């Protein structure tokens, strides 16, 4: 054996071993994703170009008829496309001041406790909490209280407003946490430097704090927005039958009318919309923050 080939050989072997370890570490997650995400997604994609069997379900075909039929669920799309960003925006407006207070103003020793308080609602199911809102907004809740002071016939439940309120309530922590993290990471000396250079507190907030927390804002916004695009529970419970989301349309198509191909076409469209939202959000936050890389979600 010529001198020098020994180290090269052992290096190749250690490289192989490193790759093997990496592969073993990733295998469970990869398997999980292939079985429960990739395969169903492929199935849905195939369903979406098929036809509804006469007795319901799927019948093999190759047609774009399901996609052409999308306008039949225009209301659901419209509601989702309006209410999901509106909900995310409402969440943002409520969440930013909270995150700002937690990261920059709250006393250090209270910070963890306050953060815990924000997460604690997750310990109960969203279903329970949304039921509670149903009661609060329903006839025996706030409207009944308002009736005492003479405000009669106020309808809260089963309105878009109720859905929006439910959305803000349910998704607020998901918006607060990423914004909190980005504000927490903010280098305080940048704020001092800004003040030193003559910027008033407002100018510092707009020019430094807000700009540098945008990655967190975009993460929170796209996270909430994507979850809202598939939201089913809140519109059902708080919107009655009136505020129909894509999520509700999907449940209806798959479980009630058993039109699997049409449901699949809607699901695929929904995924595409989500991907577009993600890409746009990523672009915006990369450009605005000047960061080399932005961790989105």
């Amino acid at each position, binding site marked *: 054996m010529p001198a020098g080939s020994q180290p090269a050989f052992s290096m190749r072997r250690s490289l192989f071993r490193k790759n093997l370890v990496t592969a073993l570490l990733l295998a469970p997650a990869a398997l999980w994703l292939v079985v429960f995400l990739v395969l169903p997604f492929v199935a849905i994609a195939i369903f979406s170009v098929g036809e509804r069997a006469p007795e319901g379900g799927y019948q093999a075909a190759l047609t774009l008829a399901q996609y052409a039929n999308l306008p039949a669920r225009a209301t659901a799309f419209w509601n989702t496309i309006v209410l999901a960003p509106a909900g995310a925006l409402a969440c943002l407006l409520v969440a930013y001041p909270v995150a700002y207070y937690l990261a920059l103003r709250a006393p250090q020793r209270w910070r963890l406790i306050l953060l815990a308080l924000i997460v604690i609602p997750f310990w109960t199911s969203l279903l329970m909490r949304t039921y509670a809102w149903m009661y609060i907004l329903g006839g025996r809740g706030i409207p009944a209280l308002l009736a005492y002071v003479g405000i009669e016939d106020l309808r809260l439940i089963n309105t878009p407003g109720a859905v929006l309120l439910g959305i803000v309530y349910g998704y607020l922590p998901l918006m607060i946490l990423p914004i909190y993290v980005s504000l927490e990471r903010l280098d305080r*000396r940048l704020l001092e430097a*800004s*003040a*030193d250079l*003559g910027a008033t507190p407002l100018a510092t907030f707009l020019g*430094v704090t807000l700009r*540098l927390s945008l990655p967190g804002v975009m993460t929170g916004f796209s996270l909430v927005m994507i979850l809202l695009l598939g939201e089913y529970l809140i519109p059902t419970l708080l919107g009655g039958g009136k505020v129909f989301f894509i999520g509700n349309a999907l449940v209806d198509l798959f479980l009630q009318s058993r039109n699997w191909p049409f449901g699949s076409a809607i699901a695929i469209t929904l995924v595409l919309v989500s991907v577009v939202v993600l890409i746009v959000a990523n672009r915006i936050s990369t450009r*605005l923050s*000047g960061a080399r890389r932005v961790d989105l979600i």
Partner: protein
Amino acid sequence: MLLALLASRHCLTLSLEPMALTAVPDIEFRAVTKRYGAVTAVSGIDLAIPPSAFVALLGPSGCGKTTCLRMIGGFEQPSEGQVLIRGRDMAGTPPYRRPVNMVFQQYALFPHLDVEENISYGLRQARPRLSSREIGHRAGEALSMVQLAGYGRRKIHELSGGQQQRVALARALVNKPAVLLLDEPLAALDKKLRTDMQIELQNLQREIGITFVLVTHDQEEALSMSDFVCVMNGGRVVQLGQPSEIYDEPADLFVADFVGKTNLLSGKVAGLSGELVDVALADGTVIAARKRVPLSRGEAVSVSLRPESLSLSAPGSGALKGIVRNRIFLGSTAEYAIEVQGIGSLLAKADHVIGQGNLFKPGEPVAIGFAAGAPLAFPRANNNGTNQREDQHAEILS
């Protein structure tokens, strides 16, 4: 105690005119104390920094120097006393209304802005607004001043540490502050770059002619760059003076030990004769030393002897005898660790003259002499910092 500085390099030329004597100090501290809860960071400092001086606040970490700088910048408020900038009391004036700018430690450049946007940040805050032409013009000037012309569109993370340092300087100076504050500005640079920047900072200060206040824990940096050094310890100003004064005539044991290398020999006062004291060292040798404060017979003292004031010669003459333990050859000079029986290890520094063969070898016996007036005697303080330094010496030499 008001430590007014009137003999700045720039003031010297003006001092014939009465104007200079009445000149308002750029920065003035009047009995300034700063407490954080139970901890006193700065206690009762009086200080006046004349216009156009390069002043270094020097001290070990935790001595209050950074707190002083931050009180000038307006990021901290004094608990007691007043901070004045050009004669105006700054109490209640927020940082964004003060006529000073700061170069922050690690620079604190805005990562989301490019080089030019960073530099023009301060100009954009000016009210009434400056025209964008003027902003562009001044930012360009500032860029060429720090030799970064053409770097305006670079992102901050694309710059090297030295370049970031220059951007931070330009960003502060472009606003034409009355005083430039520098918080350990060179700490993050490597040695070569640091030396270059020291010279550049000095040149800049002379060109612009405004007061620079530099905070540093590096005594070499303080001595080499500034017109005045303000040595701080334990929240107080220990000595204020020109670098050579601080080095040659340290006010106390702390300054003698902190500024430059020195040998500290313990002994007792054996006799008093006018300006001099006779000190009996641990091995019984009696040497004459100058004193800075009154001393009494029998008092325990430390005698400071600078390594370069020691002269080595072949055995037979000299006040002390020892054996060379280590030799550190540094090119133009050589440092020796010399073991002296009963006293301990001494550090000596000798010039190296090429071809003269005047180097001593480890193991060789030598005689140690020093010029009269070189030893300085200080009352033995129970100063923790001193012990620490002695340990460091021991470490270097072991």
